[in-house]
């Protein structure tokens, strides 16, 4: 558990890695211990089946947390019946597997059910310095706590279930520093999209990113989760942020966070989790906080990011293979090059997902929507990231603001973020969305997705077109 050379300055990633190496092979391949294994219904059935076929058990059921989220409808009645047969079978399979193998489980009937990446931190399963995996690429979210968190495939899910370890080769270190302050109207979502816009969707390939700098430190835990959530969209294996007092304050008192003397010991350890002065990064990106504008995506890749004040690009603005891809995006999205982004009309607004489905996101959107109405012809959906977020939003009166504005107030789940449940876009329908992927067909076949922050989505809901949140803020002042 000690570093090869403890004297050498190490990055945060190096430290977490070193503390989890169980075994190293001659070729440098490591067996890494996994502290938390999150499980959802889509990528786990074959893994559990594999255990069953080979007569294996889950090695650490108390460190394995299962929750259905992708397939579940977000409407009342889902506890007793799911219409779509395949979805129902997958959810039922998780139910059965969770009970049979004795892992921690939050079924749809439990108020704590929600999107796996929201439930983990909320229940205190995710803590600083841990290794966290899930058969889901957005596991990077948990890096906000200074934990090493990333997605794995179904064969690896089975491997972790059986051994509580993962066979891994170490990635390279990358630093993304956001200096200074953010301007009004600019949020964590704009930071993470701006970074992807700057580095490209493959910019992080082969790396683990550490986000740092004043603008990152200033973010709440919710904001930090939003930033880390999309590390994967930049191609990185994981994204992480060094824990600090905000992190400790968020964790304290959570159901599965340590208490008493264990808490004191944990905090003492967590305080050692930072990148040492002089530690080596293989790649560094620095962005000034003041240079980040509220952004939206125009295309079908998360790197297709532009400030809201920009115009739709021409395919010829790009180079190489991207020319063809840009043309395909423009056609798919039904846009005209040269048109102002603020002239792009929307049919739907989706507020939710593991990127922006937490209480702070709902508060931010509600603050914009208070006393306002959805633009005529626009449908709006708010989907809390967990049952507890939903409850809290109801207590705070946010749900009322959304329903008064004409939004549907849904039960927790992945919902429209991906079309695996009944919440989908119709072909050609255009959506202002707070989720993380704008791929073709992601939210429903033929559906068109513009990614943005919760306040930008709220602004679009009011006006019926992509809107600069700063204009709305100017009006309300």
């Amino acid at each position, binding site marked *: 558990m000690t570093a090869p050379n403890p004297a050498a300055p190490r990055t945060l990633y190096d430290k977490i890695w070193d503390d989890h190496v169980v075994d190293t092979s001659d070729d440098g391949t490591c067996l890494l*211990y996994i502290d938390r294994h999150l499980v959802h219904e889509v990528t786990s059935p074959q893994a559990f089946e594999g255990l069953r076929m080979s007569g294996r058990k889950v090695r650490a059921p108390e460190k394995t947390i299962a929750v259905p989220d992708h397939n579940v409808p977000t409407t009342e009645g889902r506890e007793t019946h799911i219409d779509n047969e395949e979805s129902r079978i997958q959810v039922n399979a998780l139910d059965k597997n969770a009970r049979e193998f004795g892992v921690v489980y939050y079924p749809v009937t439990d108020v704590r059910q929600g999107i796996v990446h929201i439930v983990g931190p909320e229940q205190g399963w995710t803590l600083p310095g841990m290794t966290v995996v899930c058969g889901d690429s957005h596991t990077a979210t948990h890096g906000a706590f200074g934990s090493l968190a990333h997605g794995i495939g179904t064969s690896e899910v089975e491997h972790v279930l059986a051994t509580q370890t993962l066979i891994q080769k170490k990635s390279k270190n990358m630093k993304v520093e956001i200096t200074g302050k953010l301007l009004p109207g600019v949020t964590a979502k704009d930071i993470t999209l701006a970074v992807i816009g700057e580095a490209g969707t493959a910019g992080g390939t082969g790396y683990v990113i550490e986000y740092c700098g004043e603008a990152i430190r200033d973010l709440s835990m919710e904001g930090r989760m939003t930033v880390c959530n999309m590390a994967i969209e930049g191609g990185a294996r994981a994204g992480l942020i060094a824990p600090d007092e905000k992190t400790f304050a968020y964790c304290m008192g959570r159901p599965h966070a340590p208490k008493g003397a264990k808490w004191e010991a944990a905090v003492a350890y967590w305080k050692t989790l930072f990148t040492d002065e002089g530690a080596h990064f293989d790649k560094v990106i620095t962005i000034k906080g003041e240079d980040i504008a509220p952004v939206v995506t125009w295309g079908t890749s998360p790197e297709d990011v532009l400030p809201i004040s920009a115009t739709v690009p021409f395919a010829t603005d790009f180079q190489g293979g991207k020319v063809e891809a840009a043309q395909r995006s423009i056609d798919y999205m039904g846009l005209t090059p040269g048109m102002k982004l603020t002239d792009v009309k929307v049919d739907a607004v989706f507020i939710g997902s593991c990127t922006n489905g937490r209480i702070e996101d709902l508060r931010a959107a509600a603050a914009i929507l208070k006393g306002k109405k959805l633009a005529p012809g626009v449908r709006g959906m708010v989907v809390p990231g967990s049952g507890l977020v939903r409850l809290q939003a109801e207590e705070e009166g946010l749900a009322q603001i959304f329903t008064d504005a004409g939004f549907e107030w849904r039960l927790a789940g992945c919902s429209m973020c991906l079309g695996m449940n009944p919440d989908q876009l119709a072909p050609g329908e255009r959506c202002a969305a707070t989720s993380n992927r704008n791929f073709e067909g992601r939210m429903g076949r033929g559906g068109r997705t513009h990614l943005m922050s919760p306040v930008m989505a709220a602004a679009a809901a009011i006006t019926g077109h992509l809107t600069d949140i700063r204009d709305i803020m100017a009006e309300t002042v």
Partner: protein
Amino acid sequence: MDKFTTITGIAAPMPLVNIDTDMIIPKQFLKTIKRSGLGVNLFDEMRYTPDGKEIPDFVLNQPAWRESQIIVAGDNFGCGSSREHAPWALLDFGIRSVISTSFADIFYNNCFKNGILPIVLPQEAVDHLMDDARKGANARITVDLENQTVTAADGTAFAFEVDAFKKHCLLNGLDDIGLTMEKVSAIDAFEKQNAAARPWA
């Protein structure tokens, strides 16, 4: 994963070239929650009519080959998508070895992960074995991984190549999980140390 040492069994002749993973297991069966149970849909569209009746001509529907454990196939078996459902379906049906002049790369690797031995042999050898395969139970073929030979019904033995590490895993029935399980004492030790150092984790 089941160990693979030696099998002697009936081989199904499938001389068609470029049998792809879509043929092996069509996409509508990928929504399954299981790795097991895919055997009934192995070669589904070649094996059944659209209304689910067996096509009598298809080799695996014929009495002589229903119990096949080996397939002798045309070139480039397993091309197409990376779906691990293809070896899952073969294994579930009972196939433990496929012999051909060539395989698609991903399929070839996926087989080893699932206890299936794919064997590459020269054309003449495959032709010889294809003749045996056509005779069903009257000409059983023996595959011996330890000695790296395939023996035809008439006693002719053909040597084949296999990566030493893959051979080791297959002979001992080791998948990644099996290999990691060999290090269980290291995991136990780590957990003990970890419980002391980070009791909250």
